[in-house]
């Protein structure tokens, strides 16, 4: 079985983002970028399935700017066999990503397609679901456990207040939640080897998908600044402040 894993280049989770000067987005100049953490979990799951002998090949795909090849090389270092880069410098929204991925699914015919449940930059949580709809594949979202059994896969999902286990018929789409696994570190020799693994570059126009936005971004603003706390001298003062200043009691 072949597994397709989608990965996204996002601002590194350690970076404290700030809104850019003209309020059109967050500042990206000089900012450290990395693979979306949920995508790392997706890669890890695919590689583990390959190590268990369930999968025979892991293909990583990304849609994004030229620099997103760094994230594909990371996926290759972590154990993917080859990579596909659909290159565009434009901002791509979930539906466009899902349509582009659908063309890759069509060409590659993977048994499983694994994605992160969302990307930490836009937090859309839509692409996996849209891809399932576009391709007619079954979907198991927010996966915290994945067990493949011949032509079926059991997916344990993290839902409000508990876990739900569903069984899907392959081919299927899975999106990963935080607890699915703990991704490994890339090994130095593997990073070297990853430089030589195949990486195909394609353009959205080759795939017949128009990169256009259906949404208009109006404005990006920072959250209101939190006021610093104060120390009160007595219980009476506290009660007074809660009543008359904060007006909560």
């Amino acid at each position, binding site marked *: 079985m072949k597994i397709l894993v989608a990965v996204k280049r996002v601002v590194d989770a*350690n970076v*404290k983002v700030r809104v850019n000067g003209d309020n059109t987005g967050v500042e990206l100049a000089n900012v450290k970028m990395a693979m979306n953490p949920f995508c790392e979990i997706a890669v890890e799951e695919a590689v583990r399935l390959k190590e268990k002998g369930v999968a025979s090949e892991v293909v990583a795909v990304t849609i994004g700017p030229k620099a997103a090849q760094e994230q594909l090389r990371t996926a290759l270092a972590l154990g993917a066999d080859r990579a596909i880069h659909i290159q565009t410098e434009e901002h791509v929204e979930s539906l466009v990503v899902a349509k582009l991925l659908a063309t890759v699914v069509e060409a590659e015919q993977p048994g499983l397609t694994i994605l992160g449940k969302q990307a930490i930059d836009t937090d859309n949580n839509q692409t996996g679901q849209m891809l399932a709809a576009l391709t007619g594949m079954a979907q198991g979202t927010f996966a915290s456990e994945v067990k493949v059994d011949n032509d079926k896969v059991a997916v344990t999902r993290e839902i409000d207040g508990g876990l739900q286990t569903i069984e899907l018929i392959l081919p299927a789409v899975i999106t990963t939640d935080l607890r699915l696994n703990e991704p490994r*570190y890339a*090994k*130095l020799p593997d*990073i070297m080897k990853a430089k030589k693994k195949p990486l195909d570059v394609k353009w959205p126009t080759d795939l017949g998908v128009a990169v256009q936005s259906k949404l208009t971004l109006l404005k990006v603003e920072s959250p209101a600044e939190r006021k610093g706390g104060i120390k009160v001298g007595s219980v009476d003062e506290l009660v007074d402040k809660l009543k008359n200043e904060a007006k909560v009691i």
Partner: protein
Amino acid sequence: MDPRHPNHFQHTEREAMEFDVIIVGAGPAGLSAAIRLRQLANEAEHELSVCVIEKGSEVGAHILSGAVMDPCALSELISDWKAQGAPLNTPVTRDEFLFLTESKAIKLPAPPQMHNEGNYIISLGNLCRWLAEQAEAVGVEIFAGFAGAQVLYHEDGSVKGVATGDMGIAKDGSPGHNYEPGVELHARVTLFGEGCRGSLSKEVMESFKLREGADPQTYGIGIKELWEVDAAKHKPGKVIHSLGWPLEHSIYGGAFLYHLENNQVAVGFVVGLDYQNPWLSPFEEMQRFKLHPAIRPLFEGGRRVSYGARALSEGGIQSLPKLAFPGGALIGDSAGFLNVPRIKGSHCAIKSGMLAAEAAFEQFRSQSEGAITPDYTEALKASWLWKELHQARNLRPAFARWGLVGGVAYSALDTYLFRGKAPWTFHHHDDHTQLKSAADCPKIDYPKPDGKITFDRLSSVFLSAANHEESQPAHLRLKDESVPVAHNLKLYQAPEQRYCPAGVYEIVATEQDEPRLQINAQNCVHCKTCDIKDPTQNINWVVPEGGGGPNYPNM
């Protein structure tokens, strides 16, 4: 050796990889050495594998500098740097030199070392990112996120390479779930370009007694913030240096303000680590500096976008160790190449990396196997770099002897009258022996942060985007656990709480209400000040897991 020192689970087999040259640290020194080696190899059609490792999560993530750069060395390395798109975009257009009193700013004529025609205001982090691209283009392998944790030796004592640190170690030092052992990188030459107070460089200096006959190294801590200021106040290319307030005249230090591109201003404050009053807090001096009536208006209405700190070597040539040893050499600020009166080290780092590369390559040509000693001392002495550092050698120690006023007076005398050729050389002392007891020193009252122009440590570290994998053992190792309270707290009121710019050290009360030193290692921005200034050298800074530490943007 401290058995815990290499941040390692000791019982695993490690994979080994062979290269001709390993370079530890992707700063200007390491990257320039790598580029020069591959240039020479390509010219001579000589096979030569060069590998650079960098502890930051990416190249530039741990680079913090001013920076006004003299492009002389870069031009020697890559003569068409302009055409290749090197990020030197803001030529210096104006130099100001201020002497501050509490309420006044007096403009002084800038001393010749401070003239910056032909120099550029840059982000050294961005320059390193660009150098890394140039290096990869000539065939250098660069691995970011891998820290050199241990020096490896051959049986004959020569350096065999380094081992990268393990990943995924638990707090108690045992292998965690996603444990990944480090790898051994073997090479015929290992160049240490770790910058100021390199952790492996420190070990190599001891192993080969490289400091014998040299003065102790003396250091400064530089704290820096990057601001976006009101466009109307922004003057690209403007450079300001100041001396005096808020520092007492016995302390060597001062501030810099550099107007970069895109309305950004770099503001930095450097304090000599030979200061004596344990109440002093370099961080708070820096915050206070911004409140000066001549300085404050620049920041009003602006916003702070980044923060960080880094030590720098101030010893000059008196403090240079022996540079080479069997199997390797020290380059850049790991050796102490920095021109203090000019506060410029990046051009020295590039030049020293190039000289070491040239010395190593010559030996690769003549010696087909075995460890190589890339001794570049003679080439250094014949270079402009030596001349420059020799001229500057007495200025920093003059300040240590006679304080600010005497130091300035001496500097004028040395520079204008002797032109750096005075027939004497002043010497240095160790910084960590300088503290006086807290009881004998005046307490310093610092103003409370206002959250607009001045800030506290925690909100500052937040902007350095520092992070360390939580579950690993602290990378700040105490040789003796009792010293922080029994000695440092008792005598100096725990000075680590004040000299650490990241709030890593905190005296807290135990359940029994006894004082205890808490180490918040996750906040560490890798400035190395604690390793330098701890009075009994009880704190040993070792590398944390690769990729940990600050994530500086264009610092």
